[in-house]
């Protein structure tokens, strides 16, 4: 039992360290990829190819004044970024990041806790994460912030239904909520991937995943062109940084979820070992988010609601119905 606690603590700390480092690195990757797509060079001057730009940004964020506006609700204002960052990492607790491996004769399961409600927990935690922007926008005395949090509410009400319903069909097929079970269900190779049997659910999940992580085409919360910086208008320094670590960690989580549920997870792929396979898949989803950001315009809040309630939700329900009928037959 002691060993279990120690192992869990070590895993939690490792995941926290690695994913927050990756989230920081994600900002660099995002700037580079967007730059290449626009035929620019991106950050170039700090370190080789600008890699140390993240260090420079980190120093800047840490040493900036921690500013709290006088009219703001201080406690809520201070807590809001922590909610976003913390829930993003808590969500990762139920996600198996790599296949099991043996280290110094001990079998390591790279998942903090394989609870039997894995998917539900992850989705719920990412949903709770939206309280960050919501409270942040309302706590600062700023109308852009209020608009930002109003949009957070709209977005939350729209996509959350689709996320749940789109995942319901794969859950019905696998018959479990644990992500490990999803992985073992698809162990038979590419032909057994759920994406082939549930393509509609896959697309719906991707769309709501983009909304969940607040990426273009659904980056309504803090679209600079419209609402300055939305919920983050009054934030500076590390509190602002925490929102973004949370956002990038969420992007990674969505990448893991999509590859675990639909794309065969960490099963070995042809000659690629499982660990590498899942990292490649997550990297692809991360790249897809940046790629889409560079190509597509973003949509209005009312269009998002229209899309989610009038198009995607009916599609998801029909998909569930058909899945159910096929399973009964």
């Amino acid at each position, binding site marked *: 039992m002691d060993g279990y606690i120690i192992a869990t603590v070590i895993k939690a700390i490792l995941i926290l360290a690695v994913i927050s480092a990756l989230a920081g690195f994600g900002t660099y990757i995002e700037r580079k*990829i967007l730059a*290449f*797509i*626009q*035929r*620019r*060079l991106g950050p*170039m001057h700090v370190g080789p190819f600008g890699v140390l730009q993240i260090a420079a940004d980190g120093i800047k964020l840490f040493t900036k004044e921690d500013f709290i506006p006088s009219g703001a609700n201080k406690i809520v204002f201070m807590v809001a970024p922590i909610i976003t960052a913390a829930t993003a990492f808590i969500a990762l607790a139920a996600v198996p990041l790599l296949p099991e491996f043996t280290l110094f004769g001990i079998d390591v399961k790279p998942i903090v806790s394989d609870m039997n409600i894995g998917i539900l927990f992850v989705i719920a935690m990412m949903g709770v994460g939206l309280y960050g922007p919501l409270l942040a926008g309302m706590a600062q005395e700023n109308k852009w912030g209020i608009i930002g949090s109003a949009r957070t509410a709209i977005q939350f009400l729209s996509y959350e239904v689709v996320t749940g319903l789109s995942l319901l069909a794969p859950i019905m097929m696998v018959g479990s909520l644990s992500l490990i079970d999803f992985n073992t269900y698809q162990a038979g190779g590419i032909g057994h991937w759920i994406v082939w049997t549930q393509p509609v659910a896959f697309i719906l999940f991707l769309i709501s995943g983009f909304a969940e992580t607040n990426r273009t085409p659904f980056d309504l919360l803090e679209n600079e062109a419209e609402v300055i910086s939305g919920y983050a208008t009054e934030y500076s320094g590390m509190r602002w940084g925490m929102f973004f670590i949370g956002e990038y960690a969420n992007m990674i989580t969505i990448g893991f979820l999509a590859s675990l549920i639909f794309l065969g997870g960490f099963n070995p792929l042809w000659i690629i070992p499982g660990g590498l396979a899942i990292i490649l898949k997550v990297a692809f989803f991360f790249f897809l988010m940046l*790629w*889409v950001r*560079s*190509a*597509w315009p973003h949509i209005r809040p009312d269009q998002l609601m229209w899309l989610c309630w009038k198009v995607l939700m009916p599609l998801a329900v029909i998909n569930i119905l058909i899945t159910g009928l096929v399973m009964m037959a």
Partner: protein
Amino acid sequence: MSLDKLKNRNVGVQNYKMLDLGHTPESGWGKFKQVLKRSVKLELFVGLKVTIREMFKALFMGEMHTVKYPFEKLPISPRYRAIHEMKRLLESGHYRCIGCGLCEKICISNCIKMDTRYDEEQRKEVSDYTINFGRCIFCGYCAEVCPELAIVHGGRYETASEQRASYSNFEDMLTPMDELMNQKEYPGFGAPTPVADKNIKKTPLAY
């Protein structure tokens, strides 16, 4: 970008294409049909294709647009009017300026100040010549009026300075003696045209 492209100012020769935008549907059914058509044709993915194509072009086909400015510079037109230069005669190395004072006279912002005197051989020499670049508007009149092609515009366009009045002396603008062999004629404002030799006529004897 090559110099040729930069110098091509033939606006209107390019092939502009009107985009076929089609008509905007009015009725709900029309809108629905348009949405359906666009989804089936996967129009969204065309956007993705274009962006990834640009990325490959930039990364592997050397079409990156960035010019890392202080380290790399785009070529400027040879006729660009930047900081002035004073030219020398190629044969003797003596400066070309004959001290006629036309440039001082024509300068519309009054920023050229010059003085001349007789040297020991009773020839006019420039004793003092300054341009106040804080006032100069780089109109090019001085280069155009100069009968000797002595004062011309150079290519040095980075002219930030610490003070508003920034003067240049004659010696600063003069081609250094060891650079004489590399001295280039200025093709811009006031320079003779490439066909100048052909256009020359003999002065009639009656004058």
